[in-house]
């Protein structure tokens, strides 16, 4: 039986950083774990009941208690400090992407499939050469992608295990997700949030191409791909347009909340 004590090989730029944080915490908590469990076992054996002996009468020790309050405090704050930079660069595209030009994509989750909108050769979304591919996420290696993540119905979670990417897709919100693949190959996109009876099969394939190969794929698909689903125009009146709402479209709220995100 393969226990799998290590994380799978990361294939994104920040994957290694996340993994080293994981191993840092593993070392720290592992050390505490060993100290505590060994002390527990030693005490239990050494101070087991013996006839005619009385336990030491002690109500505590201020110095010892101070030490084991301060040391964990320092350790957890250290972990938090180490984590925060990685976290913000991972989740906030503006911090992580810096000046790279990223490939824009739109991923819309719905029961129980992922629809990916590609910008086509002009690399801009919401233009005529956009096309939608169901359950297939393609991208070039070595170039960041910037995803507009949405959901049509319930909450899904956009999970790319090998890339260390996970982000809930929430209906009514547009959430930006970015990452950059470091190795070409075939990977998996999974739904990680319970989304109904087909949740377990809401998966998609992820293909990381070499750049030229990706261009070829784009060229092929732009001629063959489905036209994008029309995105309803933002409601411009103060009143809510109930009929449009019942169609389950994306209104201007999504864009606004997306801005909050960034």
């Amino acid at each position, binding site marked *: 039986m393969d226990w799998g004590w290590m994380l799978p090989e990361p294939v994104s730029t920040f994957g290694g950083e996340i993994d080293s944080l994981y191993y840092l915490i593993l070392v720290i908590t592992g050390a505490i774990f060993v100290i*505590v469990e060994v002390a527990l076992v030693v*005490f239990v054996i050494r101070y087991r009941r013996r006839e005619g002996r009385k336990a030491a009468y002690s109500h505590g020790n201020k110095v*010892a208690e101070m030490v084991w309050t301060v040391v964990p405090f320092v350790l957890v704050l250290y972990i938090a400090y180490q984590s925060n930079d990685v976290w913000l660069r991972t989740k906030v595209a503006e911090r992580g992407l810096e000046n790279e030009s990223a490939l824009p994509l739109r991923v819309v989750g719905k029961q129980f499939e992922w629809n990916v909108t590609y910008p086509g050769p002009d690399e801009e979304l919401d233009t005529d050469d956009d096309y939608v591919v169901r359950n297939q996420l393609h991208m070039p290696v070595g170039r960041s992608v910037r995803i507009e993540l949405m959901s049509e119905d319930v909450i899904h979670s956009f999970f790319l295990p090998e890339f260390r990417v996970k982000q809930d897709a*929430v209906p009514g919100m547009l959430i930006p997700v970015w990452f950059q693949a470091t190795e070409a190959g075939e990977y998996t996109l*999974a739904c990680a949030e*319970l989304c109904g009876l087909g*949740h377990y099969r809401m998966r998609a394939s992820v293909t990381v191409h070499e750049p030229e190969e990706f261009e070829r794929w784009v060229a092929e698909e732009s001629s063959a791909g489905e036209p994008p689903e029309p995105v309803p125009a933002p409601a411009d009146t103060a009143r809510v347009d109930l009929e449009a709402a019942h169609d*389950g479209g994306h209104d201007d709220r999504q864009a606004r909340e997306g801005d909050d995100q960034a």
Partner: protein
Amino acid sequence: MSSVTAVAERNVSVQHWAEPEHPDERPFIRKYIFSTDHKVIGSQFLFLSLFFLLVGGLLAMMMRWQLGYPGEPMPGGGILPETMAAGGILLPEFYNALVTMHGTFMIFFAIMPLLVGVFGNWLIPLHIGASDMAFPRLNMASFWTAVPAGMLMLVSFFVEGGAAGAGWTAYAPLSADPEYTGVSTGQQIWCVSLVVLGFSSLMGAVNYITTIVNMRAPGMGWFRLPLPIWALFITAILILLAIPVLAGAVILLLFDQTIGTSFFLPETGGEPLLWQHLFWYFGHPEVYILILPAFGIVSEVIANGARKPIFGYPAMVGAIVAIAFLGWLVWGHHMFQSGMNPLLGTSFMVSTMIIAVPSAIKVFNWLGTLWRGNIHFHVPMLNALAFVAMFVIGGLSGVFMASTPVDIYIHDTYFIVAHLHYVLFGGSLFAIFAGIYFWFPKFFGRMLNPTLGTIHFGLTFVFYNLVFFPMHNLGLGGMMRRLYDPNAYAYLEPLQPMNTFITVNAFLLGAAQLVFLVNFVWSLKGGKPAGPNPWNANTLEWTLPSPPPHGNFAAIPRVYRGPYEYSAPQVEADYWPQSEPPEPGQEPPVDYTVREALFSGDVPQPKDAPETKGSDG
């Protein structure tokens, strides 16, 4: 020899109980069914919540079958209706119902009533020296509100569409619109049942708080309270403040489902994340509701088993209070990947990291209590030691998901499942076992069989770890939770042997609980008579006969010292009951008198208690 004599003398000197010439003449129905006696209500909660623990366990077994042997007909699955299992093969919608109801039953109807309903009812009046709760009839109402709530939840399996299937967290919009799950009535019943149960919990909390504040015996200052009472007091405050938030949120959810509002449905401006915020604002204090009483029980048992005063009593109390306070500031750590602003994630990460500190203090203080003790390995002590060993794992694994970047990967995977079971099973449930083995003699007048108890403990400890530890590895492998069939993903297929291994051990873990069940039922009538104080413990309930008579104390006892005066040099025996009057010239033990004066000046105290720290300090 001498200690035996001391025991006999001591029992005479502190005999408070009612004389047998005042027989209890209540009719059967008032005595055992609609009783206002906190002890009967505690036992009623015990039977009810053990029943739901069994139900929750059986649901888990079915889930484990599907995960261990996906797509194969479950043995005995043929008796399930076609809406749940086709030819014995569990359906995905039924699997989702199992996931939801296993969590719901275990959290709301098993662990919470076991810790709060059973030990709260039984221990509070006995530990503080009161004749009953402040509001006995409210107490009865609390139990009889919990019963219909639980029954309703059970019935929801058999309504059209089956039981709720949106997870115990009921994330909207999945839970808010029946179109998304195909479950309509079941989800509504889930909401109604939780609101009804909320009333039950509230009644209990009001009662506990009032009783602990108002009805402590003379001399029972705040810093002489046994730690279970401190823990239950703080827990009651958490229940009081958290449950109404859940009730409000669940009612809004119910409106979305039934009358067509859109609080959580985004099409007309509702906010799915609002549900998560409200739910976790309740939900994280709830996590501590499920562990604080366990801390209290374990502290009591460890001090008793080690025959040593609890190490750092004020720090133990302070840690409980700190956890309860910080518990209100960390709810967002359940929502790091939810689309919440990442900067909020940072602040929730920091508060979450800090809440690890009081938990660490508690663990180290338990170790300090064991250090240089004289450890008796009675069955409650074994379970309490297992609690410490397992809670450490659950606590440390929490640091991984507190770190926001690491949480990106492990959120919603089996790593989380492993973590929460190390806290709720390895933590709460081992503490519950410790508590049941410890107080069963007081509850029912008879000892649980120690041999069966040890076997039950050993099997549970081993199989528990074989079930839940590998789940960390599943999570590392990227296996999502609440996944009907992991083999739907090619990259999870190599994990199938481990899933099967876990399932086999889960069945053995379940089977081991039969030992407990047999021991429990048999010992009710056939156990060895317990006597008033089988563990040589200090707290007030052990001065009463087992089981204590209706009305508990014939005369309200007087308390002279803290609850953990084990192995004090002043007395020959290694324990020193709280209500035993001091002998002339005897030096009083450590008392936290300054703090006591701060908190309750009105409770009379013996004067001039010097701060004499132990020599090995």
